[in-house]
């Protein structure tokens, strides 16, 4: 018997039939449609830079519904948010971004030949981790998702060890335990990536509270995706941040997509930034392909964090230019070349354009840089595969299944370990 038939028969409570049914949103454009985005109303200079220590949430109302920009589309930097970086700093940022992109391309190639099981690129979003981490101090904690590996370059991680992780060889510092791109790099205070999305967002509050408890000059930065902001952890993070005011920087990277799901299914609010206002946390929407704007807002947020005023909530507005991962084929769910229509363009091209505009760079130097980095990546790759790769081994010892589950191996694991060895697990 169907339940609601019974209900409807009972007590004459059922309403009358009316037209209409569920209202299910979907992506505005699908394969076959012509890629298109509304152009942005906000220009560099439109939004003020409030005092970070004393800023209230409502003072950022315009920032949450607007868009903080520094670079215009002609490559000029302007406005209160211009961080006035030196050319060297800009070139450093550019180099990291180029490195990230080249690295990603190399890894994708290796993935296709079976040397990695899986890969995820930062393509189109390289500025996010790199500009934001550069705006911090080295003692600050970085709590990334799989789309912020770039922070490791900023913190000086050796590329060989990154590749060794991805190809799951003997030298993988996490011993083949997690999938590629699930980096851990404690020396650089880059906290371990884990697959369940969102969890790091709420955990970051505890990281920041610990720093604050100890009275150290440290903050924690973390990110979450547009899709993942629907998890409970997003709410926990914002809410605990509103209550305890820890030194934390909470970023939503709105790259428009969560695998095949458009951001309009992630939230009914056209700006993710504005959600932070509801928690009484100053909130900004930032052009995520504008290196300078990202840098600047992050620096502001750090200053605020360390003043004791608590969290900043930042929507990083960008576009996932590539597939979700090596397992994904976006041509099944979005228009081809949609990334070319993105109003924010490409973060690397925009920084190059700026550097050229201020006469600190040239096409030739860019080409040179790309070649140099390509060589670096190739060299690192060659070094890394010496220790094995997923297709050919050698892998981390299977013993690593049993170690570091606990600080010490308990008896039942010891028995199982012996059992495994009997069957050739080394």
């Amino acid at each position, binding site marked *: 018997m169907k339940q609601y038939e019974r209900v409807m028969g009972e007590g004459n409570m059922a309403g009358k039939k009316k037209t209409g049914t569920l209202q299910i949103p979907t992506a505005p454009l699908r394969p076959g449609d012509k890629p298109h985005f509304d152009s942005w109303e906000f220009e560099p200079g439109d939004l003020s830079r409030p005092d970070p220590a004393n800023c209230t949430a409502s003072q950022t109302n315009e920032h949450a519904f607007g868009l903080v920009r520094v670079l215009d589309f002609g490559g000029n930097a302007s406005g209160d948010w211009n961080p006035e970086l030196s050319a060297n700093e800009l070139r450093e940022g550019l180099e990291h971004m180029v490195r990230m992109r080249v690295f990603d391309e190399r890894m994708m190639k290796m993935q296709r030949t079976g040397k990695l099981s899986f890969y995820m690129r930062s393509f189109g979003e390289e500025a996010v981790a790199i500009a934001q981490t550069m705006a911090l101090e080295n003692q600050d904690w970085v709590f990334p998702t799989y789309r912020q590996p770039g922070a490791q370059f900023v913190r000086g991680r050796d590329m060989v060890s990154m590749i060794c992780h991805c190809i799951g060889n003997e030298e993988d510092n996490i011993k083949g335990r997690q999938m590629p791109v699930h980096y851990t790099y404690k020396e650089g205070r880059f906290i371990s990536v884990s*697959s369940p999305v969102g969890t790091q967002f709420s955990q970051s509050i505890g990281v920041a509270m610990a720093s604050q408890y100890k009275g150290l000059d440290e903050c924690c930065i973390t990110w979450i995706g547009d899709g993942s902001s629907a998890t409970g952890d997003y709410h926990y993070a914002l809410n605990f941040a509103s209550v305890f005011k820890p030194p934390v920087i909470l970023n939503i990277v709105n790259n428009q997509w969560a695998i095949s799901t458009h951001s309009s299914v992630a939230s009914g609010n056209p700006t993710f930034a504005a959600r932070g206002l509801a928690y009484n946390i100053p909130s900004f929407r930032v052009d995520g392909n504008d290196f300078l704007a990202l840098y600047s807002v992050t620096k502001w947020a750090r200053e605020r964090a360390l003043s004791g005023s608590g969290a900043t909530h930042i929507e990083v507005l960008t576009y996932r230019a590539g597939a979700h991962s090596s397992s994904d084929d976006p041509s099944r769910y979005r228009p081809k070349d949609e990334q070319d229509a993105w109003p924010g363009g490409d973060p690397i091209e925009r920084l190059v354009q700026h550097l050229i505009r201020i006469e600190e760079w040239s096409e030739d130097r860019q080409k040179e840089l790309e070649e140099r980095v390509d060589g670096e990546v190739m060299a690192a790759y060659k070094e890394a595969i010496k220790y094995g790769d997923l297709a050919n081994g050698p892998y981390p010892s299977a013993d690593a*299944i049993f170690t570091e589950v606990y600080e010490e191996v308990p008896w039942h694991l010891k028995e199982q370990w012996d059992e495994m060895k009997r069957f050739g697990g080394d």
Partner: protein
Amino acid sequence: MAEMNMVEAVNSALDNMLEKDEDVLFFGEDAGYFGGVFRTSDGLQEKFGRHRVFDTPLSEGGIAAIAFGMGINGLRPIAEIQFADYIFPAYDQIVNEIAKVRHRSGGEYWCPLTIRTPAGGGIRGGHHHSQSPESQFTHTAGLKIVYSSTPYNAKGLLISAIECNDPVIVFEPKRCYRGPFYGDPHNVPTWKSHPEAEVPESHYRVPIGEARMAMEGKSCTVISWGAMVHVSEQAIKDSGISCDLIDLQTLIPWDRDAIVKSIEKTGRCVIVHEAPKTSGFGAEMAASIQERCFYHLEAPIERVTGWDAPFPHTTEWDYMPSPARIADAIKKTMEE
């Protein structure tokens, strides 16, 4: 009849039920337009409309919660959890709410929902795309738990789950979506010509609560579910020992009669699952079987399982029960 792989069989079950009963809705992350990351709902949104088959926000807790609400208000929701590893944000809704609502309300409300989710290892998924968390739901009264292993039972069990007036969690071994898995990662067969890939296109049921005798023998009873059924089959062949192979199919309520009968015949029992050993569902089965069949058992019940460690990425073949380990356990029971 048609030859289907497991993805097609699941799709066919959803298709049949969406067709048959307008109270049936299907939803989940990437499950609508895209048809699911494993393509199990491919084409269904187009066929039935966005109000029947749709994408949700990335929120397993919310997905379970709306399924609860729809269920008590007369619908038969089917919620997909993209990977079983991501079911845990919904754990509170499932074990404290969905499982208990019929009972707590004195039978006034109930929740005929289905949660289906790809589970298990063998696809290089590491910690969080490989877990097989079925036992973590078996301790909660009010839930029914099934675990399919072939195209035929994937469809038939899913239909039974959807039609069931109790909440049912359906685990599907993702490693077997496109072919059975015999424990050798280098041997990647498809379902082509497999007898269990002969699947009616129309509606049929595989009853909840009944095990399937996958192979018949006489010396030892091997019990398994999910992908491990096929690995066990291989192991039995390798061992050269004549065994009953029981594909459990339903974990709650499990088919004790079938198992007791087999063990009374064989006197020996090996349980195989890929989830970790400690408090895996093999523990419950072994505990129950020794209670019931104490005087028939000629050797201790062996469990061959995943290790008590997070599921690894590169070394997954050292983690999952292999034909060699299973065959060894069968032989061990024979030596006692």
